[in-house]
């Protein structure tokens, strides 16, 4: 089954210069903006974006039009913050979109800002995306030059300024409210909701935070209509999504497919399957924060609700990581735990302490020093981070990083409990005798 290229069409058709203004204009670029400026903001919100069923492509999958509608009426200024701080392990789609089709993102930003009546937008680009920053920076300057940004855009009377802001190495800055803290010049620590950003966001003003892929999809929706977009995909998972497939596959890459495409079509079809004829041991369907899936799930459709409700995982950021039969699941779990321990901002105790404990325990388990009760130990205190330990994860922390640290442990318990019990073997701890022969 082939890809359905909408957001990635230009960069695939013209890999040599897809990021240039000339190429953008010669492939229909900024026509959607002209069309949008002839509509009313309400029409764009309701008849196009809400009707399209577009859901956020950053991880949470919240309805984009619905998110916009939470802005309180008649409160100005309001801001749009673009989340280009892609950091979820094994996700590399926004990186590609920023580097290879920056004008498409800018066009999406202008249309969306017009729809939510905002006149100042911020693009928060991950610090490590040096080339992406450079290309976006040039694209923004070009857009000002041609009247797609600035005062009285294309003679419509609408004004918009865009400020490009570079991050500096922090996963949690990609959290919606962590991003706002970072933009304000603080440590990127998430904030308690409510108040939600739509009510009190950046500089305590109403703010919409949208992901790069989400906004890059908006021009196509305006051009071809919300109803057209809603006709793609499956159920409430409308349209296409870019899946980043990596790990043990022949052709690791981003693939844009209609939602509902099966994992097998993505992993074995488009990405060419596991090299060397080896088999898949397990795969992670939606970034490091999503619970793992097994080979028996390969024929399941990439339907956000189905994956969450029936498979107890999530499509998250759209990063599919594939691990072959030679992979030690404990080693993968430990490396992801190490990531979360490193990136925990330290604001909430369950996450700050829990991530470190899990990293240490998984380290010893994956390096030949594990104890028979280690898995149960993690589940025991993990219940304080994620009460009930059942998807969708409840949380005792301000942001979703807390529950994410448990997804690997829950996965080990679901699918590898017997193997782990066998491998941890007998308790080999050197026990310190209680003083006086007992009563300790």
């Amino acid at each position, binding site marked *: 089954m082939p890809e359905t290229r909408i957001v990635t069409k230009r960069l695939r058709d013209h890999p040599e210069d897809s990021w240039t203004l000339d190429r953008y204009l010669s492939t229909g670029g900024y026509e959607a903006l002209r069309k949008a400026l002839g509509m009313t903001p309400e029409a764009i919100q309701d008849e196009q974006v809400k009707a399209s069923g577009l859901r956020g492509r950053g991880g949470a999958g919240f309805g984009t039009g619905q998110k916009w509608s939470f802005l309180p009426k008649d409160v100005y200024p309001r801001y749009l913050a673009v989340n280009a701080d*892609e*950091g*979820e*392990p*094994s*996700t*590399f789609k*926004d*990186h590609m979109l920023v580097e290879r089709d920056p004008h498409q993102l800018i066009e999406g930003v202008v249309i969306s800002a017009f729809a939510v009546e905002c006149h*100042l937008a911020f693009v928060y680009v*991950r*610090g*490590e*995306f*040096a*080339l992406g*920053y*450079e290309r976006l920076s040039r694209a923004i300057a070009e857009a000002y030059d041609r009247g797609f940004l600035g005062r009285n855009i294309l003679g419509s009377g609408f004004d918009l300024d865009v*400020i490009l*802001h*570079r*991050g*500096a*190495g*922090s*996963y949690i800055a990609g959290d919606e409210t962590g991003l706002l803290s*970072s*933009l*304000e*010049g*603080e*440590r*990127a620590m998430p904030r308690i909701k409510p108040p939600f950003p739509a009510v009190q966001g950046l*500089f305590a003003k109403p703010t919409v935070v949208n992901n790069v892929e989400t906004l890059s999809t908006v021009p196509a929706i305006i051009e071809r209509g919300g109803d057209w977009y809603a006709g793609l995909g499956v159920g409430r998972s409308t349209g296409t999504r870019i899946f*980043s497939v*990596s*790990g*043990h596959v022949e052709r*690791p*890459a*981003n693939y844009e497919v209609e939602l509902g495409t099966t994992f097998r079509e993505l992993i074995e079809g488009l990405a060419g399957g596991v090299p060397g004829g080896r088999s898949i041991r397990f795969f*992670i369907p939606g970034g*490091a924060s999503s619970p793992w899936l097994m080979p028996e799930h390969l024929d399941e459709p990439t339907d956000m609700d189905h994956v969450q409700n029936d498979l107890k995982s999530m499509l998250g950021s759209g*990063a599919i*990581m594939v*691990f*072959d039969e030679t*992979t030690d699941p404990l*080693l*993968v779990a430990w*490396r*992801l735990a190490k*990531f979360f321990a*490193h*990136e925990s*901002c330290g604001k909430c105790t369950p996450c700050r302490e829990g991530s470190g404990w899990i990293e240490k325990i998984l380290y010893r388990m994956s390096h030949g020093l594990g104890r028979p009760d280690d898995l149960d130990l993690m589940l025991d205190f993990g219940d304080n981070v994620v009460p009930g330990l059942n998807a969708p994860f409840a949380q005792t922390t301000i942001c979703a990083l807390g529950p994410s640290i448990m997804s690997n442990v829950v996965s080990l318990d679901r699918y590898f409990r017997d193997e782990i019990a066998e491998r941890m073997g007998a308790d080999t701890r050197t026990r310190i005798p209680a003083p006086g022969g007992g009563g300790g």
Partner: protein
Amino acid sequence: MAFTPENRARADEIVARYPVAKSATLPLLHLAQDQDGWVSPDAMEEIGRILDLTSAQVLGVCSFYSMFKREPVGQLVVSVCTNVSCLVNGGPELLRALEDRHLDDDDVSVEEVECLAACDLAPVMQVNYDYHGPVDVEAAATIIDEYKSRVRTPRTISGTRVDAGAAR
């Protein structure tokens, strides 16, 4: 440390972009790092003066973000990813080999980093934030040596721009 007159003008221009001056903290830290090769205590103090913050506040922000180097580093920062897609494709082995190779090399600082969002290039490394991958040890060593001998032009230490003549 002080910003050069040129960078001081650039700093004022950056501050003026934002509705609230403090938002310029990260951009000014990048600017200082690009100028000096690292973020010195003096630089944090100066940034504090520009933004009306204490140097402790600036340090508090600076120390949160892994790209800011609060000790001098080599002119080339080699970042090697060892997160899972690189883990199963030789990332940790690449990291160890490069760490050993540049142990006593003042020009090159090798660091382990989290996912660089380029897993199609696994195992991937960055040299001053330019991507290279997939690379084995030999290919990585060749690339690093080409940067050292300026056959390749590296970006500034924060990766902001390619600038052969940049002061370090």
